[in-house]
């Protein structure tokens, strides 16, 4: 008798459920995604006992006819793709046709649906993957699916469920990530019959962001907007002052699909460089829209992971977009950001971007990929998911007076009751100097704000940017050759990465050559790093790149060196400054790209608007 048998369907569904349905939140994700794909405008999620006793998602979407409904709970049945080419141009959130049968296999499952054309709604009851009952019932158009007693037939899984609160937290996270992507849909979340969240449909994506992420963001958002030939990046990122300990609150959407990708987080952090303390992450929502053919979504059953065909170019573009956004004056209703450099930053470059400086060049994507690509998919891709361009449309109608240049206004435009914002007062040299406190801090005032500037941090920033500029302007990076080449052993993956990077590394002054197998020899280092040991440096670059596909490594190390040099070169605390010196310092700060943070990410200045002082003195309440 043959040892190998085809598994019965119920068993294979249970196995599939193991991947797709990890915990109640996964069920919620699959069901809500279906509701979104069905074109609903209102989605209600009801949870009982953190999803243990009940998960019910109802929508007012397309609904299904009787026969479709029966088919839907079969494995690999879907309305979302029909043919092989569709798989490479996926525009819906789901497509695998696995979710419903998987959920049905591990719960007591009821599907009630009305396509609005049949006389009655269809109701199907499935228990542990077996259809128990099919009947007609009355129901409004749309679909309601409830999965009760999740994992009732897989006790092991059920045992591993965490507490009600933990599971509910995961569910809320899932709903948040879905809601952020679709401001046009109303989401309501109930737990144990109590309404937990209600996010009505809104016109302005910022409203949805503030609803979901919290009010503190209203005044601390920077719009990101970058449009290239193939790719556009839109969204909002938080002020560097608003940070989190993890990357959890960075929401990345690729063509509307929420994903997690470490390379993208790295790229964002790189864009923030010099503004964040080590180990802190910003908050943000980024919508990437690129041709579906450039993304492989079919990597993991839960679709949290995707692959990009040109990830280096993508990361580079994200970094640029974030860095540009942070240099913009922050989110204001009437100020569409129009960075002149947008046109030059091409993600899949067909020609060399004229704005990219020498030092950035090695990380640019290989140009060979671009020319052969058809441009046609672009239109399809970008039309599927609407990503809102920052600050356009109806927002423009609000108060045109506010668009005037900030530097022309002597007083920061602070909305009443809100903290004055740094970027509204970019001209340090216009501040009038009160004096120096403790030979360490410079006190300045504008009409209504008291500023305290950390002289060391500020000067460090100035020296650092000067060093950086010099480095970028240099046509060749000087390097020191070694008498005794250093031998480096890498593992297979790392050496593959390094092999590819050799020309880039050589360009930066690292003469590295393969030495057979996974061994390399380093014959020179950039002269600024010549006191370092090449081994750990190269290994770290290789590890980071192999791990995340993102390659900041060498520049990072060089910048670390520059930071160190800047730190040594900068004036210290406890150092008396004459008024002239203070003025000169402020003037140089104005010329910095990022005058608000020292190269380590600490702030260079803090400020007290007069309102807050008045409050503390109880003059106003």
């Amino acid at each position, binding site marked *: 008798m043959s040892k190998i048998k085809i598994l019965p369907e119920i068993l294979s569904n249970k196995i599939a459920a193991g991947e797709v349905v990890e915990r109640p939140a996964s069920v919620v994700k699959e069901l809500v995604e279906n509701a979104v794909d069905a074109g609903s405008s209102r989605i209600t999620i009801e949870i009982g006992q953190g999803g243990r006793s009940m998960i019910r998602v109802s929508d007012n979407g397309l609904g299904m006819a009787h026969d479709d409904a029966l088919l839907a709970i079969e494995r690999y049945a879907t309305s979302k793709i029909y043919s092989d080419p569709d798989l490479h141009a996926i525009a819906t959130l789901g497509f695998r046709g696995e979710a419903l049968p998987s959920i049905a296999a591990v719960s007591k499952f009821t599907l009630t649906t009305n396509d609005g054309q049949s006389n009655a709604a269809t109701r199907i009851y499935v228990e542990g993957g077996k259809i128990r009952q099919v009947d007609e019932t009355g129901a409004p158009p749309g679909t309601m699916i409830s999965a009760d007693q999740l994992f009732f037939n897989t006790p092991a899984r059920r045992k591993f469920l965490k507490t009600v609160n933990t599971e509910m937290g995961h569910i809320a996270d899932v709903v948040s990530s879905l809601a952020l992507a679709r401001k046009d849909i109303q989401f309501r979340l109930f737990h144990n019959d109590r309404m937990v969240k209600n996010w009505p449909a809104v016109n302005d994506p910022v409203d949805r962001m503030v609803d979901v992420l919290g009010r503190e963001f209203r005044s601390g958002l920077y719009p990101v907007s970058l449009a290239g030939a193939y790719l556009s990046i839109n969204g909002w990122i938080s002020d560097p002052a608003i940070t989190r300990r993890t990357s959890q609150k960075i929401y990345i959407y690729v063509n509307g699909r929420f994903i997690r990708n470490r390379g993208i987080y790295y790229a964002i952090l790189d864009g923030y460089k010099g503004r964040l303390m080590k180990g802190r992450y910003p908050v943000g929502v980024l919508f990437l829209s690129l041709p579906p053919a450039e993304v492989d979504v079919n990597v993991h059953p839960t679709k949290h992971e995707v692959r990009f065909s040109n990830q280096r170019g993508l990361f580079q573009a994200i970094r640029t977009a974030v860095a540009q956004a942070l240099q913009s004056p922050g989110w204001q209703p009437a100020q569409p950001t129009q960075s002149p450099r947008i046109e030059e930053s091409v993600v899949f470059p067909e020609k060399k971007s004229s704005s990219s400086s020498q030092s950035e060049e090695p990380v640019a994507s290989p140009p060979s990929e671009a020319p052969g690509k058809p441009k046609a998919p672009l239109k399809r891709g970008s039309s599927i998911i609407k990503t809102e361009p920052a600050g356009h449309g109806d927002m423009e109608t609000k108060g045109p007076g506010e668009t005037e240049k900030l530097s022309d206004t002597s007083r920061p435009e602070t909305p009443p009751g809100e903290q004055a914002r740094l970027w509204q007062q970019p001209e340090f040299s216009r501040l009038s100097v009160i004096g120096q406190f403790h030979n360490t801090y410079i006190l300045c005032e504008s009409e209504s704000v008291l500023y305290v500037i950390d002289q060391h941090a500020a000067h460090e920033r100035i020296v650092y940017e000067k060093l950086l500029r010099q480095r970028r302007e240099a046509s060749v990076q*000087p390097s020191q050759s070694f008498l005794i080449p250093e031998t480096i052993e890498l593992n297979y993956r790392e050496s593959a990465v390094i092999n590819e990077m050799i020309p880039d590394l050589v360009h930066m002054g690292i003469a590295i050559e393969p030495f057979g197998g996974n061994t390399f020899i380093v014959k020179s280092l950039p002269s600024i790093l010549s006191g370092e040991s090449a081994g750990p440096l190269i290994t770290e670059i290789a590890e980071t790149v192999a791990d995340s596909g993102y390659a900041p490594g060498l520049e990072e190390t060089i910048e670390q060196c520059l930071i160190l040099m800047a730190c040594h070169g900068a004036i210290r605390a406890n150092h008396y400054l004459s008024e002239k010196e203070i003025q000169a310092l402020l003037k140089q700060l104005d010329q910095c790209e990022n005058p608000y943070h020292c190269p380590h990410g600490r702030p260079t200045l803090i400020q007290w608007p007069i309102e807050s002082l008045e409050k503390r003195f109880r003059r106003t309440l």
Partner: protein
Amino acid sequence: MKTIFTKSELLDVLSKVQGLTNRKTSLAITENVLIQTTEGGVTITATDLETGFEGIYPATVATEGIIAINSRKLYDIVKMFPADQINIEELENRWVAITSEAVEYHLVTMTPDDFPDIPRADEIDFFEMETAALKDMIEKSVAISVAGDEKRAHMIGVNFETVSEADNDYIRMVSTDIKRLTKVDYVCDSKTKPAANENVIIPKKGLNEVNRFLAQDGTVEVGVQSNHFFVRKDNETLVINLLDGEFPPYRDLLNIQTAYDVLFPREPLLMMLKRMSIVTSEEYKAVIFNYENNALQVRAVNPNVGESKEKIAIDYDRESLEVAFNPRYFIDALNFIESENVLLNIVDGEHPCIVRGENTSSYFNIIMPMKI
């Protein structure tokens, strides 16, 4: 334990070991000196676990014993002690009294059993060297130092070996930071017959201690045994733990036949490079050497500071050649060369430059170029 020291003698010993005992350490016992009195005299021991010191001195010993006492405090007390005779006596519970007629200190001490063992130089063949020569070799070798967190043995250590070339035996030290390398040879005379040994790597940190330990004149005895390098002078011995690792093959680098020697007057070249280095900085370290017809032009360009150039006449009739160097490395080498003229052995912009005195091959410097 009870004994009487002469102030000047004790002070002399203690000052030699301060470098070992005053290091930051998590092993507190190494901040102490071990003083052991026996019938024959007093033994004083100190260590930083890498380098150890042991000296045996005659002293008036009343009772035998052993104490581990804080080196820094004892040194300070002895240095300012008002009398010439210092009594040291162990009391109960590891208290130690340091007294004269008028002065009395009671110090807490540590358990002498905890003191790390110092390797003894038993049954090894010491060979004799002139103190000045050893000092000179060490100074030239440790001049090439590396950053504190460097771990590679061939960079934090000096290659030490005996070499037989032509008719002579040499003691050789080779030191490198991989950007440059120096080789110092010491010709052995009939008295010094070192046993042929394999090369060993001695940490530069320990060699610095040796230099502090050595007097200016006379002779010292040097020896290598298993993992230790010994330097013995009369009744005092310094022992350094050798480094594990391999020194890269350097001999091919000393081969100068393929290249071309250019003769320079030492002092003018040194001064010229010193003047050039004024313009260099941490970011712009390089100066450019331009060999032209019978002249070397050197120039330094630093956008932050400015630029400078200078010419020196030499015998040179080959194709002109441009190569960049860190002038610091030349200055270090030229400072140590004693002869009036020096030879720079050049190949091209890729290969190292060899710097040495005109009529000697005992001190070699190899310097790698920069690319700018």
